[in-house]
């Protein structure tokens, strides 16, 4: 499937030094009505092809970070670069073009309840208006096959279980092969078996397509699964990385506490940080 790109005629501000990074947060702060700062001067980067798992207690601003990336909400201060475009200075009309390169899986799936599964997954493709119906159908079936839900094409979201809805949301997010994927608690409220299925799909997307991803979760087992497993194309299943294997799953972690980043690094660095920081130790224990 060809990747989308912003049409040339749309002159969006783009900075050359930020183009090779998927996401950059630069000294970003945001607060909501009647509350203290939800995010307080945070800075981090997501490299192209990297998967970053954002963890932290409830209310630390994890989901807010995801909504800031495509410009769904605006920060009070600081800058955000998404795919080289400074979203903090872009107008809403220009952001719609950029958002077509970003796939987002919402916490509660946010499927359109008046549309069928087929129409939900096809939504973005149909909005492009220039794709033939056969091509849309082929890509919808392909995306639903990826999440193993081909048989639900004509069902409505209300007929699906929570886990199935989450998988349809993933299919909707990946159908246009976006440059960035944002997962907001994709396993939240699901049983352990279904959660593992969802994580396996995210691993599959990470290892097959190397899409830059931000994943918010407060479930540590999910984070560890992501860091210690890879998707085996031959067996079509998730497999643990052997200690001797030099496989780089390109996955890092970020922990938030009271609106600030208290850890940002890979699994190895996290183990070291846990030894020195009692909060991180307690959090991951």
């Amino acid at each position, binding site marked *: 499937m060809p990747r989308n790109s912003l049409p040339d005629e749309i002159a969006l501000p783009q900075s050359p030094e930020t183009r090779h990074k998927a996401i950059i947060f630069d000294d970003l702060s945001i607060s909501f009505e009647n509350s203290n700062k939800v995010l307080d001067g945070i800075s981090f980067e997501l490299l192209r092809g990297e998967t970053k798992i954002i963890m932290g207690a409830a209310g630390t601003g994890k989901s807010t970070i995801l*909504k800031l990336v*495509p410009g*769904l909400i605006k920060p009070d201060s600081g800058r955000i670069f998404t795919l080289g475009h400074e979203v903090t200075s872009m107008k*809403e*009309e220009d952001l*719609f*073009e950029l*958002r*077509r390169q*970003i796939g*987002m899986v*919402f*916490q*509660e799936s*946010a*499927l*359109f*309840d008046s549309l069928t599964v087929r129409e939900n997954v096809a*939504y*973005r493709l149909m*909005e492009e*208006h220039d794709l033939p119906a056969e091509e849309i159908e082929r890509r919808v079936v392909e995306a639903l096959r990826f999440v193993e839900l081909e048989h639900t094409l004509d069902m409505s979201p209300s007929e699906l279980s929570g886990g199935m809805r989450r998988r349809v949301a993933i299919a*909707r997010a990946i159908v246009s092969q976006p440059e960035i994927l944002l997962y907001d608690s994709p396993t939240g409220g699901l049983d352990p078996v279904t959660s593992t299925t969802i994580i396996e799909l995210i691993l599959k997307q990470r290892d097959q397509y190397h899409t830059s991803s931000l994943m918010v979760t407060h479930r540590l087992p999910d984070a560890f699964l992501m860091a210690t497993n890879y998707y085996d194309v031959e067996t079509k299943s998730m497999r643990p990385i052997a200690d001797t294997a030099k496989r780089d799953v390109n996955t890092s972690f970020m922990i938030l506490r009271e609106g600030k980043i208290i850890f940002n690094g890979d699994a190895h660095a996290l183990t070291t940080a846990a030894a020195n920081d009692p909060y991180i130790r307690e959090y991951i224990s």
Partner: protein
Amino acid sequence: MELISPTDFVKERVLAVQDYWQLAWRSIQNLFGHPRYFGDTLQQADLIGVGSLPIVVLTGFFTGAVLALQTSNTLQRFGSTSLTGQLVSLSMVRELGPVLTGLMVAGRNSSGMASELGSMKVTEQIDAMRALGTDPTKKLVTPRVIASVVMLFFLTIISDLVGLVGGWMLSTLLLHIDSNQYWSYAWQSLRFPDVVMGLIKPVFFGFVIASIGCYYGLTAKGGTQGVGRATTQAVVAASVLILASDLVLTRFLMILFPGY
């Protein structure tokens, strides 16, 4: 219940008015941009126009009938019951047809729009739409505005006609006024400015109904309770705005057509 300072209250209201005007203005700007959602517009036209037909017909009929009853009672004192058709016709076409149709459609559709869009808002479907690269004002608001304006125009014509029929039925069956007399007075009393006045109003009322319904829906917050609140507020605000704008429009049109 939490108390709010008067300054914050005023700020909130001013901000709400500003947000409303921005949304209303964007819904108009979208008419000249792409993409255009013809399918959604037709679907809304069906929901608003065809769906509202029964209540508009019933309202028009009974209003026309009661107008005939009331006016004939007064006219009888002056021995001029023959003028019943004229009074029913002028009242329906100039004022009651557009206003009552507007209020009825507001009660039915402003609430429907507010609850539909409000439910989408609280379940993050609006955010999902934005994240998928679709402008909700183009996809959801503009089709509703176009459909409301166009359909209210035609619903008002139907309401006027049915109102005249209601007045005629009552006049002939109960008051024993001659049919030809009723219709000739009803027809001859109408002048071009009366018709223009009666058909400009629904254009504004249709815009108010859709833009208010969409505004309250898109700004709903606080779960299902918030959706319920938005629905109620939409109906109240749309009804009050219809009546207020009716006064302003009538005054403006009277200046535009002096002597009418």
